[in-house]
């Protein structure tokens, strides 16, 4: 049997080279792979392309600064990879910086490139990347600034914008439980874009609360079939969850 289970996050990210693209969810506390982000910072790969909804995701956390444990999450948000100068490009829908997040300054100084994409288009680009398709047409953004410089085509009388797939060399997934085949279930809105990331990445690494034997998860309720998952690490005692 193929063993997908690794003991540490350090092992799981050890082969990520400089210049790699990384895709992950970042929607506040719900579904962000905090432990893999920390491991990637320790690992130190540079010139990364970061693909997610957000570069940061501090909005939830800022609402409730007194909630116990929140500071721990703030210190494991994707923007920490900006502080460690590991990112050369971000592809996101929310590009707003905050006092802790230097994205604005870094983009304005030319140190980091930013591609800002409407959220529905962003996640569909991930979906068709994960579907092995080469592009799609949408009417979203037609007649707006977003259309500028985009290839368009009239289909069935409607002007449409061509959008290209997003795939990543490595996908970081935050799930709830994995079985030994790599099947995953999530928790509530922590599902987020995690199932899309799993499919759109060449090497997909999942951090999970629990690992169970194949057969213990309900076949009807598995969200990500195991064939999309390459590596699984269980969050240890003291890890972020």
């Amino acid at each position, binding site marked *: 049997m193929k063993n997908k289970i690794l003991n540490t996050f350090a092992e799981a990210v050890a082969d990520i080279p400089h210049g790699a693209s990384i895709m992950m969810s970042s*929607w*506040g*506390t*719900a*579904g962000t792979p905090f432990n893999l982000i920390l491991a990637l910072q320790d690992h130190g790969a540079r010139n990364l392309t970061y693909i997610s*909804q957000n570069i940061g*995701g501090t*909005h*939830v956390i800022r*609402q*409730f600064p007194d*909630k116990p444990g929140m500071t721990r999450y703030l210190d494991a948000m994707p923007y920490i990879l900006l502080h460690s100068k590991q990112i050369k490009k971000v592809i996101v*829908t*929310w*590009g*707003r*910086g905050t006092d802790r997040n230097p*994205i*604005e300054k870094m*983009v*304005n100084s030319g140190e980091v490139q*930013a591609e*800002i*994409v*409407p*959220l*529905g*288009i962003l*996640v*569909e680009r*991930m*979906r068709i990347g994960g579907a092995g398709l080469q592009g799609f047409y*949408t*009417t*979203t*953004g*037609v*007649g*707006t*600034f*977003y259309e500028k410089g985009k290839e368009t085509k009239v289909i069935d009388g409607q002007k449409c914008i061509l959008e290209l797939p997003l795939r990543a060399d490595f996908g970081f997934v935050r799930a709830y439980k994995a079985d030994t085949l790599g099947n995953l279930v*999530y*928790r*509530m*809105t*922590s*599902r*987020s*874009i*995690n*199932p*899309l990331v799993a499919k759109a990445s060449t090497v997909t690494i999942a951090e999970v609360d629990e690992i169970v034997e194949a057969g213990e998860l309900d076949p009807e309720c598995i969200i990500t079939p195991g064939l999309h998952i390459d590596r699984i690490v269980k969050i240890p005692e003291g890890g972020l969850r």
Partner: protein
Amino acid sequence: MKQRLDRDIIAARAAKELKDGDVVNLGVGIGTLCVNFIPPEKQVVFHSENGVYAFGRVLAKGEEDLMDLNLVNAGGQFVTPAPGMSICTFADAFDAVRTGRIDVTVLGAFQVSEKGDLANVVASEVGWIGTIGGAMEMASGVKKVIVVMPHTTAEGKPKILKECTFPLTATRCVDLIVTDVAVIEVTEEGLLLKELAPGWTVNEVQAITEPKLIISPDLKEIEL
């Protein structure tokens, strides 16, 4: 300066537009307050583009015990579950938006034009490096688009314009504008002034609105 409606009243007026059985997406800001003004006999089902259908109200400070780090809305706020809740991915959630399965969205705006063009995203022209979010899909995919906003900018400039000067979110998408002084419907003929805040006159509203308003024959004081 005349009294203007507060955020709660604006939300309550917008909530009156939501019908029993409607599937509704609420934008961050005044939009999310609408959930507090749904009478119990009316079932409105809330959808959020981060992958949740049928959720309840936004939790406030002091309710930390009820918060689940795994259950947030599109604004990243903690919410309660509602009976019949189902979870999906962001991609699945936008499928419902683009196919017209969402009945109403209530969202904020920087500007609205007399043709119903909406400007509410942050492109580089506005400031920052850009923040678009799901507004483009909502504005063009949802059946009825209600804008809730102050009638004027912090500097007193009109936000309802002949043409938007800010980058557009979508063209000809807005159906109704609920502001802190008036309720205005976007019609083929132009902007139809339907309701006024207490104490406000047609002329006073027109004075802070760039396009010429059509006055409804049924013009009345705002009703909640």
